[in-house]
Structures are given as structure tokens and as C-alpha cells.
């Protein structure tokens, strides 16, 4: 089994309307879709962790030399599409399975039930195991 992190940015995919301006019915359908998806991952024994991150207004960036007081700035001020919105960690049989799960997330419905095609970044975790074989 291999662990993968599925990263979702605050990128609306093919929908330009910010989620805060969606109709309630569309928002409910979107939330239900993602909630059901997580529940299926829980049932299949593949879910390790799922978390959403708070809005960027709560974010800080820290820089330090390790000697003088660290410099704090608000931010990040990257384009909102590049800001991490949440992540799902799964433990699955193969990379193919991780990609399949990401595709299901990406197809979450937006306004009018149209799939959002949100980009999901799939990253494999480094393992703490290691073996040099007979070198």
C-alpha cells in the first residue's frame, strides 16, 4: 500500500463564479458529492486523513534566520487559484487507484450540476522504509 496526498487548490476549475456566490442548492449538491466520496473512501479502508484549510485571511508567512526575531507577513498573496484549499490523504494499492480517486474529486458538481473539473494535484509520500539490498 502506498500513501498519496491529493491536493485541491482554491481553483474553481471551469467555473468562474466564486463558491460563496453559488445558489444554495448547487452548494448543497457539491458538499454532498464530496462528503459521499469521503465516506466511500472511509468504507473501503483507504482514507487516512482529510482536511480543509481555513481562508487565506488567517494565513501567515514566517521567515527566520534562526537568530533574530522571525519576520511575519500576511499572506500568501499568490493568485487565489494557487492557494491550497484542502487535502485528502489515502493509502491505496496503486498509483492508478490514487488517480482514480482524484478524478472523482475533480468531477464534483458546480452550478447547474456541471462537473467542475477542478485540478487535483496527486503527490506520492516519501516512505520511511528503506533497504539497500545487497549493495
Amino acid at each position, binding site marked *: 500500500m502506498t500513501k498519496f496526498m491529493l491536493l485541491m487548490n482554491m481553483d474553481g476549475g471551469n467555473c468562474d463564479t466564486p463558491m460563496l456566490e453559488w445558489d444554495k442548492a448547487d452548494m448543497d449538491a457539491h458538499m454532498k458529492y464530496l462528503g459521499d466520496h469521503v465516506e466511500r473512501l*472511509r468504507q473501503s479502508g483507504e482514507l487516512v486523513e482529510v482536511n480543509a484549510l481555513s481562508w487565506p485571511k488567517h494565513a501567515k508567512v514566517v521567515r527566520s534566520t534562526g537568530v533574530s526575531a522571525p519576520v511575519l507577513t500576511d499572506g500568501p498573496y499568490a493568485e487565489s487559484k494557487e492557494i491550497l484549499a484542502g487535502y485528502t490523504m489515502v493509502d491505496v494499492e496503486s498509483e492508478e487507484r490514487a488517480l482514480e480517486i482524484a478524478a472523482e474529486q475533480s468531477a464534483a458538481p458546480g452550478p447547474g450540476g456541471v462537473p467542475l473539473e477542478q485540478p487535483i494535484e496527486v503527490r506520492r509520500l*516519501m516512505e520511511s522504509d528503506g*533497504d539497500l*539490498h545487497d*549493495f
Partner: protein
Amino acid sequence: MAISTTSDHADGPGHELEDLLRELTPQVLGAVVRWSGDFAAAEDAVQEALLAAATTWPRDGRPDSPKSWLIQTASRRLIDEVRQQQARRRREERAALREVPLGEVEEHDDTLRLLFLCCHPALTPASAIALTLRAVGGLTTAEIATAYLVPEATMAQRISRAKSKLKGASFELDTDPDRLRNVLHVLYLIFNEGYTSTSGPELHRSDLSSEAIRLTRAVRAQLPDDGQVTGLLALMLLTDARRAARTGKTGELIPLAEQDRSLWDRDQITEGVALAVEAFETPPLGEYQLQAAIAALHDEVDRAEDTDWPQILALYGLLEDLSGNPMVKLNRAIAAAMVDGPDAGLKLLEPLDEELAGHYRLDATRGHLYEMRGDNEAAAEHFRAAARGTTSLPERDYLMTKAASLS
């Protein structure tokens, strides 16, 4: 029943009780499955009985026959469960009328039957591993989850899905050699999971290796004349014997040639070598026997430079014919380099460019062979490529350090 952090269980009555319960688990479960005919329900009932034993025995004293006590307790729980279901569904009290088995059932060992069931081909390796550790190994779901670094709920879900997949599967021994091969493969995977874990926060995971050795011993007790089984046990012992030497103070990996061999476990090596010889003389020769023979040749010598590389090269040749595994070809190239020089090894790697395109171990092997050749620049380049390709943190650190030391 926490997994201890050492393989030495001699310290204290808690460990003694833990060992006893784990040893009895497959026997008790076997008896209850046999009696009830329902693996999934029996497994739940035995887990409850084990928990009851772990809490009441230290307080009230150990029963005269621990095995009977466990079988009876588990059977009663099963009956209670069946009664509740029947009351709910208003079914006739068929199973509940059966008598509780006395516990002194026939003295045959059901370990093998249970292992065959838990390593059923219908299950994925991950499910088979989880079920084996719980049903045959007697570990709790929480312990297995900790060992595999996933939340307990995730592991519980995997176990329950595996059990429901086995509904209706036969408890009779299937003598198809593929089934035994499956069992040995699952044990090998459990062993490897423990062996390759590096020290640090996952220290407890190394206990999986001890558990795999214990279970493989149990299989060998039932099938003493099977060369594959003996070979696998030998391989595990000979590999595990080097455990203390394979990582340094900060968890960094130490290659075989640089290990402090005084840290190797001599008793395990003595036993492993004897078993490897026995397995090698028991045809047909399979992968485990050959790998055990190679491990024995490494473990037998006190100094890396005394290693019998011509023999190892010949054994890798046999292994390659048998498995065709490209990873075996890499090892054979290393052995060839030790016998005939680095160019011979590099030549053997050439046909692997297609088969293993971009695999970090091909880069790592080339790095070692170029280093042997004295071509440090090419070596460093291959080690850097390997460092980018691996998904293992300790391996990456080793490869980056190698590259840095050659630049």
C-alpha cells in the same frame, strides 16, 4: 497486548501472557471455526475472548487449561451473539442449542488452515496481511494499524471487508501449491515491512519481522519437508540477523559491505545457515531457497572481502533463470562486477535500460559500478539521478550522501 519494541520477550509476566495468548490464538480460532462453521463470527468472538483473558487472568489467576478457557469463552460469546440475532429475527434457535465444545478438542494444529484461509487469493495482499496478523498472529486491530501507519478505523474497515469477502470460503486445506505460495508470499511481505522500517518513530514496526518469523516457524512445524518453507524461514533468519548493523545512530542505512559484523546475531546465523543448507538439498529449488543460500554466503564470513562472490554469482544466475525478475539481474550485475570487474557488471546492465527505464535502482547500481571503476563523476551523476527517483527517505539520504562524497 502492545507490540513490544524489542524481540526479547523475556522480561516480565506481561510478555509471557502476551506470548501465550498469541500462540493460542490460531488454535482457539481453529477450534471455534470448526465448531461454528462461521469464520467471520468466530474471529470476532475469539478477539473478545482474548481481551477478556488479558484483563481477567492477571487479576483472577490463570485457568488450568488456558486453551479450553478461551475456546469456551469464545463459543459462549458466539452463542450469545447468535441468540441475540435469532431473537431479533425470530428464527429458530438452531445453532444456540449446540453444546459448548469442551475445549479438549483433537490436538491438531489449525494454524495452517487459518493461514490458508487468511491468505485466500480473493483478497488483496494488504487485506491478507491485515487478516493474518489479527486472526493468526493474535494482534489487535490497533496494533496492526500502528504498525502500518494508518488510523485504527481504516484498518478495522480493511479487516471487516476482508472477512466479509471470505464468507462461505472453505476451512479445509487446499493442497494446490499456488495456495501455499500465496501464504509464503504474505509472510514474506510482513517480514519485509518490518525489516525495511528504519529506526526512529517507527521502531515498533520491526516487530512485524519477529511475527513473520514466528508464523513461518509454525508453518514449518506443519510442513517440515517443504524446501520452500524451510528456505523462507532461513532467508528471514539470515536477513533479520543483520538488523542491528544495517542502520546507524541517526537511522541512516549502512550497506552490507560496511556493516559492523560484530553486531550480527550469531545464533540466528547458525540456525539460518543450517536451514538454508537443508532447504537447498530439498528440491525443487525455488526463489526462497536460492535467496537463502545467497544470504548464507554473505552471513557466514567475518569480513566482507572474504565473501564467496563466484558462488553468489552462480546462484544469481539460477535465480534469474527461475524468476526473470529484473531486480535479480541488478544483483547479478553487482556479483559479476565483484568477480570479473566493474565493466562486466556494467555490460550486464545494458539490456535493462528498456525493462527498467528510469528506475532508481538501475541508476543506483550504475553509480556503484562507476565508483568501483574509479569514475567518480559518472558515479555521482547516477547517484543523483537515483536520489531523485526513489520514494524512500532513508534511501534518498544515502544516495545524496554518496553523490556528495564523490563530487
